């Protein structure tokens, strides 16, 4: 899988409560999650996420198992999330809902610059420099390639 987008920078330890607050979880309407995604982190952020590659700090997505967090990012138009490390449940959830989560160390972020990635070749590129990305496990790669765990299961069936 390959992609490109404009960088949106987030700090370290962004928890799932910050990504989508509990008060918006009383629904199955994904457009509501997209509208309010990252609202408690920065209320101006949601409209800038269409076509964005999020470049986050360490431990991205810590906290709750709420899958609405990666779904909200995906629905808001985020192309991929890149971080030096992810909280385990968020990482798995992101792949399961078809949102590329890429582990990459040392990626600089100023905001707005172009970021490209190739999961197949294992790199992230920005400012003309390529940074190595840690490969996904075979299973996670298959799930992501299928567009998420639901499609992976459908294909298996």
């Amino acid at each position, binding site marked *: 899988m390959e992609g490109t987008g404009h960088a949106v920078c987030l700090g370290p330890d962004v928890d799932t*409560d*910050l990504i989508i*607050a509990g*008060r918006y979880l009383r629904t*199955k309407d994904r457009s509501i999650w997209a509208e309010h995604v990252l609202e408690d982190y920065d209320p101006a952020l949601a409209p800038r996420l269409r076509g964005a590659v999020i470049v986050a700090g360490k431990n991205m997505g810590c906290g709750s198992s*709420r899958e609405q967090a990666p779904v909200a990012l995906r629905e808001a138009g985020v192309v991929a999330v890149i971080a030096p490390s992810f909280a*385990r449940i968020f990482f*798995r959830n992101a792949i399961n809902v078809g949102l590329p989560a890429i582990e990459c160390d040392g990626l600089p972020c100023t905001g707005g610059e172009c970021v490209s990635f190739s999961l197949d070749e294992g790199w992230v590129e920005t400012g003309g420099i390529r940074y190595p990305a840690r490969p996904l496990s075979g*299973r996670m790669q298959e799930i992501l390639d299928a567009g998420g765990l639901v499609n992976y*299961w459908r294909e298996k069936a």
Partner: protein
Amino acid sequence: MTTLAERILDAPAGAYVDRNVDRAFAHDGTGVLALEAFREMGKKVPAYPERISILFDHLAPANNSQTATLQAELREFAIECGLHFSDVGEGICHQLMSEGQVLPGEIVVGADSHSCTAGAFGAFATGVGATDMAAIWAGGSTWFRVPETTGIHLEGTLAGCAEAKDIALTYVGRLGMDGATYRALEFTGEGAAGIPMDGRLTLSNMAIEAGAKTGLFYADAITRQYLAGYGHDVSEQVPDDPDYAEEITIDLADVAPVLSVPHRVDTVAEVTAYEGTPLDQVFVGTCTNGRYSDIERFASLVRGKKVKTRTIVVPASRDVLLRAGRAGLLTDLIEAGCIIGSPGCGPCLGMHMGVLGEGEVALSTANRNFRNRMGVGAEYYLGSVATAAASALAGEIRSPEVL
């Protein structure tokens, strides 16, 4: 040699394995999404309904007709498919799982991050998201990467007013919020052996706050005795000189009453450093500290006195509530000025009942103090039951040493 995680998953750390799941559970918050994904997978009936539980706890009872409608759909599915079903008022999923539903050596997966709580029984218990849960409903198994393990060696015994919660906050503070990411925790040593089951559940519960997949205790005489109370005769697990990726040692005699300070669980300080901070609310409950021994301790400390700030007590299950009622603890709490909530997650996740207002400050026995979680613009500290009691009586943060 092997860690407990390696032993249960039957593969070395780093390996990817597919394993059948002995118990799988979801609550009203995640089960609705899991059901949607399950249906999108083209499935109608789970493969192993007898292994699946649905427990309503996050918005229990429903706070508006929208959530009631979502719960109704999941309730109908659970009953029609013959799943284990606990309706509103039965209690928090992790507490109910700890009431004889999880056994040592099992693989337990819950659609909630604090599913690691059941690691206290020597079960590989971990949290997943809703779509992962749907796939488990569909096929009865899932994949795991066998984690490396951080050994937490507990020496000595607790002194003064310190509780298991203070140990939990201390280790999360030591490791940091991502200090055990992709790992299991193992609590070992004479200090661990001396902690009763309720305290072990508190320590395992907070493993996720250091990023860990699960927080394991070896099943021992205490585990056997506890589960015998639910009619189970289980074998003990003995450590096999496990190979740890990292080890830390905590002398329990050095553990003081501590707080997690807003807005990070790993920002831990002694309670005395924050004494005098005015409080708008104290909350006792949750899957961390809503067990019978917690309610009993809190009631024993506030009995015959009056709280000076609004104080919400939520027993973690119907069993806890019943026992507290029979023991007269509820009367003690109500006479002391506390509010009793129905068993469930209550104010912990800020969705209903006890949500904080802007600028308000609270002390909670829960496991997370992320910004805005319990209410937009609010601040809250995490502490032990005894710290909550001392603080509720003072109307401000107060060390339990004064009681």
